[in-house]
Structure formats: C-alpha cells, structure tokens
C-alpha cells in the first residue's frame, strides 16, 4: 500500500508554467480524481507521476520513495491511456502478456493470470483478436486488463472513458468503481475533464485550473463548499448562477441583497464567515437547484419576478434560463405544467444555500465551519450524477 505525494511540483513548457506549485497528498488505497477544463495541467501532472515527464521543480513520492528521478518502468505503476495505446501488432493475449514477459515474470503462472483478468473484464473470447478487430469498449477493457495484470501499487488512468459513447461510458464507470472496490489496496489516480465522472468515481476530487490546484475534497464537500467561483461553477450541472450582490450586517443578523430582493442569511453564515468580511459588494452563488418557484415557506428568499426565456428538459426536471431585471439566471422549474417562453414566474432561492465569494479574489467568504444543517443535500448530489 502506498500513497502519493506531490511536493511543490512545477512543470514549465517554453517558459510558461503548465503546473504551478502542486502540493497534493493521496492516501494509500484512495481513488483520487484530477478534474479540470482542458489545459489545466491534469494530464501533465499524471504524466509526471508516471515518469513520462520530468518535473521542472519539486519532488514526487510514491509511498516513502522519492521517485522524481526513477525511470517510469521502475515505479511500479500501471497506466491506462486515453487512446488505450494497445500494441497494434499484437493480439489481445500478447498485449496482456507483454508486460509480464518483459519483466521476466514466471511464465508458469502467466496463462492463469491472463485468464483470470480476461474473465474479470469479460474479454476471454477476444484473446486471439488484434486491437483493430475490437470495438471501442473492448479496447478499453483490454487496456484496463493490461494495467491490471501488473497488480501495481498505483493505478493511473488518463481519461479512459472519453472515447466511449455515452451508454458505454456509464457502464464502464460503474465497472471501474466496482473494480476499485475489489482492489482496495491499489491507489488510483484518475484524470478527467468530466465533472460528473469526477463526482461519481472519486473518493476525493482535485480541481485544477491553469495549472493551479484549487481544491481537493470529497464530492459532497466540493459541491457544498466550493472554495472559489471557478469550483462553484465547474462542479454541478447546470452551473451555479453567479450574481452581483451586497452583504450587510446589522447587529446579529446578516442579509444579502441580490436579484432585487433582500434575504436573511444569518443562519447560513453563522460561525462560518471568514475573518475580516465586512458589509459591501460580494458575488453571490446560487445553484439552479436552489432557485425555484416561490412557495412562501420559511427559509426562502422574498419572491423575485422573472420571465422564462429558454427552458431545457433534462428528464427529471426542467431548467430554465430566466430574465429578471438586468440579470439572467438558471432556475429549476416544475415539469408539469411545462413553463412556456415569456411566462412570468415568481422565483425564490433557499437562503440557507447561498454561496458568497469575494468580488476581487473570487474566493469563498465562508469557511466550511460546522457540518451543514441542510438535509436535502445528498439528494442534490444524486441528481448530479445521474
């Protein structure tokens, strides 16, 4: 069992930093997902861990061993590439057997192990075929099998599902999770640009942007406590509404003025407000799930009058882009009756679910604080990861 540690790792390409000062601790046996938009440095970080790129500065550890200068083949890792990288000139059996053979592992047990892995991945009937004769999903399984044969300390996956169609992707996602549960001793590092994949699969998720690690947290914490506007918008679909607002304190109560209404957020900020936050303009984040037709119940903001512009049916719910005053927001509307374009709807948001960000630094003004009292959060997550 070994964890992984990045210590102040930088990677420069032609003078610009692709990865800046990456510090990340991955616990042994953990499934961590690196997620971010393309060009955020997630694949470069993975390749540095694999030894396919050398960091410009900093050290990388696998377990207690400093592997920064260890050749890739001696790091005891397995990697699944985005393109699968099967050896085109070998059939499936030889693809699986290649690693053990070059490492001169005993031949006697090889057959049995290949059969075992092939059975696990349901590719036993394909052993004699060449990669060219396989479908995308089958190639993906072979690539996975080739990585599994090694029984490595660390299992690296670089967008392994991105070349599959949607249905197969969901199926393979579930299989990867099951696989990880079986191989609980292996540490997994998984790179994806798909936040849904990240939230479903990772024990923890690391969000990167422009080579900077923004936040590492469990899926739930990432969703509930985004540390910055970027994370708030990147995690969750449809993405969080970010609006200009004003925060004001008077006595014990704290209110935020946004979308033309003033809502009491005392309970939300109690004990969680970062030091030095004073009254004034802020950025207010409201998730579409927390913005819905007003019902007048407690905990809701006063009603906001809005007009439906475009509504999008996602199956379980309807999300609509609405116009209210100068702002456009995305809100959750009932499925029946489906709101028409131009229809007026009174919206309200859940005051206990607003996110507050600094206008200049875009960082969250709220600490994680005591565990949230919201009870409906897990339901929201489950909708995210449909």
């Amino acid at each position, binding site marked *: 069992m070994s964890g992984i540690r990045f210590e102040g790792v930088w990677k420069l390409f032609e003078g610009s930093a692709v990865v800046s000062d990456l510090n990340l601790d991955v616990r042994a046996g953990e499934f961590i997902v690196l997620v971010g938009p393309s060009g955020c440095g997630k694949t470069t970080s993975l390749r540095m861990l694999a*030894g396919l790129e050398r960091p410009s500065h900093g050290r990388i550890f696998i377990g207690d061993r400093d592997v920064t200068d260890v050749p*890739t*083949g001696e790091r005891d*890792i397995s*990697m699944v590439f985005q393109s*699968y*990288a099967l*050896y*085109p000139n070998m059939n499936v059996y030889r693809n699986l057997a*290649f690693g053990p053979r070059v490492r001169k592992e005993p031949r006697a047990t090889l057959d049995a192990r290949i059969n075992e892995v092939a059975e696990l991945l349901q590719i036993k009937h394909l052993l004699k075929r060449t990669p060219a004769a396989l479908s995308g999903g089958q190639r993906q399984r072979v690539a996975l099998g080739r990585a599994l044969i090694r029984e490595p300390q660390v299992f690296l996956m670089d967008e392994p599902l991105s070349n599959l169609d949607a249905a197969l992707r969901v199926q393979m996602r579930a299989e990867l999770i099951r696989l990880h549960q079986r191989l609980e001793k292996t540490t997994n590092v998984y790179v994806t640009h798909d936040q849904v994949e990240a939230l479903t699969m990772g024990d923890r998720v690391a969000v990167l942007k422009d080579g900077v690690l923004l936040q590492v947290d469990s899926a739930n914490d990432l969703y509930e406590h985004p540390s910055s506007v970027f994370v708030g918008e990147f995690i969750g679909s449809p993405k969080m509404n970010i609006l200009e607002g004003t925060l004001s304190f008077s006595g014990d109560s704290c209110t935020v003025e946004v979308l033309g209404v003033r809502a009491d957020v005392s309970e939300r900020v109690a004990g969680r407000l970062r030091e030095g936050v004073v009254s004034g303009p802020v950025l207010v984040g409201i998730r579409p799930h927390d913005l819905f037709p007003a019902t007048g119940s407690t905990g809701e903001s006063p009603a906001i009058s809005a007009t439906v512009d475009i509504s999008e049916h996602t199956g379980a719910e309807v999300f609509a882009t609405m116009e209210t005053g100068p702002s456009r927001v995305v809100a959750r509307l009932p499925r029946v009756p489906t709101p028409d374009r131009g229809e007026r709807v009174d919206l309200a948001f859940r005051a206990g679910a607003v996110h507050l960000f600094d206008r200049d630094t875009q960082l969250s003004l709220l600490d994680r604080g005591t565990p949230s009292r919201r009870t409906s959060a897990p339901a929201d997550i489950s909708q995210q990861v449909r």
Partner: protein
Amino acid sequence: MTVMTSPEGTVAGPDLERLWKTRRDRDRFQWSSLALMTPAFGLLIILFLIPMGYAVYLGLTNLTLVGPDSVKWGFTGLQNLSRLRQDSTFWTSLWVTGGFIGGSIVGVLVAGYWLASLLMRARPWMRIVVGGVVVVSWMMPAVTAGMTWYASTTQGGALGTLIGMRNTNFLDSWPLVIVTLANIWSMTGFSMLVIGAALRNIPSEAIEAAMVENASAWQRFRSIVLPLLRPTMIAVVLLTALLSLANFGLIYIMTQGGPGNATNILPLYSYQQAFSFNNLAYGALIGNVMVLLATVFGVLYVRVAAPRS
C-alpha cells in the same frame, strides 16, 4: 457482369426489381468498361509485351551486331542457354549483382532508419535542411552521383584527403564496396522519407505504455517499432532491389564494370556482350535473366504492398 435479382420467395414485382437494381452493393462491372480500357491495354501490348516477347525470342537466336550473323540469323534453340551455363563471367556477374543489391538493401535500410529516427527528434528547421539535402542526393542523376563519387574516392580525392590517405585509390582497392556505398548514398533519401513517415505513424502512447511496463529500449524496438515498420521495410527492400538492379548509369560512370569483373553487374555485362562484343542475342539473353530477377522482386513487392483483404 451479372445484375443480382431479388431472392426467390420474396415479394417479386417490377417495382421491387427496379429497387433492387439501385442497391449500391450490387456487382457493378459493365462490359462497356472494357472498351474504355482498350487504349491502355493497347499501349501495354505494343510497348511492353511485344518487345518483351521479341527479346525472349532474340535471346534464343544467333544475332550479332556486325558480321555475317547480323544479316543471316535465326533461331538456335537452347544453344545460348548452354553457353550461359558455362560462362564463368556470367556467374561472377550474378554474384557481383547479388552482393551489390544485398549490400545496398542493408545499407539503405540501416542508414534510412537511422536518419529517420534522428530526424524525428530534431528541431523543425534541422529536419527541413537535412531532409532537403538527403532528398537532393536521391534526386541527383546517376551520372552526376557517379562522377562525384568517382572523383571523391580515387587517388587524391576528397575521401582520401579527409582521412589522411591521399595516395590510396579506394575505388581501385575496394571497387564493389565503393560503388555499393555510392548506390546506398543515392537511395538513402528515399528510404529515409518512407521510413520516417512510417515512424511518425507509430502511436507514441503505445511506446509510452511499453515504457511504463518497464520494457527496455531494445525490447520496445523489437516488439513494437520493428513489427509496425515491417511492411514499410519490406517495400523499401524490394524497391531498393529493383532500383539497384536498374542502376546501370552509376557503375558505368564509375568503373565500367571493372577492375576485371569486380563491379560487373548484370546490366553492364549484358551491355558489354551486346555492344562491345557484338553478341546482340547473348546480351538479350542476359537481359532476360534480369527481367526474371526483377519479376521475382516485382511480384513480391505487389504482394506485400497490396492491401490485405
């Protein structure tokens, strides 16, 4: 040829029949297409097949360039063949040809792969400059290449000056080696281009995957690069063989087949017999042997290069 009709037992009718004919997967051969191919066939027959047949016939006659047999000549059956069998110069020439082609193949392959893999890692401007120079050497007429190599490898030439052996005549001391080197030099550009293109087609992630598996550089080359380059390499081998066999000009300029018969490859010997010794018929017979050799290479080339079904 045949238009498929609807399978029996299905609802047949004129409409269905017509629909069936619009299917794009039906056999679309039409006899009229033969007419369109006639000019090409005609040219092939007039310019290739008839002269070939005539050359085969000539090889079995006693035609000479001058003398009585140049006027009154005729079919002599297998006489020339038995002469060929006992002609030690012919057998020497065959060996020399084999050495020349074999050496060229090895050299062209190794040098081409070496240059191509070096250029893969080179900076773009370097790739353009080196690639350009090498291609120029390939485009250079055999006469120019031959003159250049002749001048550089004889006594007082560039090669001797460079390695401090000004008084050695390399071309005289190792004639077959030098002409083979010259041939390799002139054909490496082509093999570098072809092998370079094939190298760029090898997925880099497959190589990286092998690195992750702890395969050594040699194992990666042996198990992945080489098998993927195989079809390209075979094509290079066969094309080198064919082009070397036809590279009359280079050797004629450099040594004219000498000294002795040291570089006397078949095309030179054929020319020698036909036009120096005036034995037109015998020269044609040696030419036919070359045609046979070339056919073997050609058939192999077509088989390897043809897409597999």
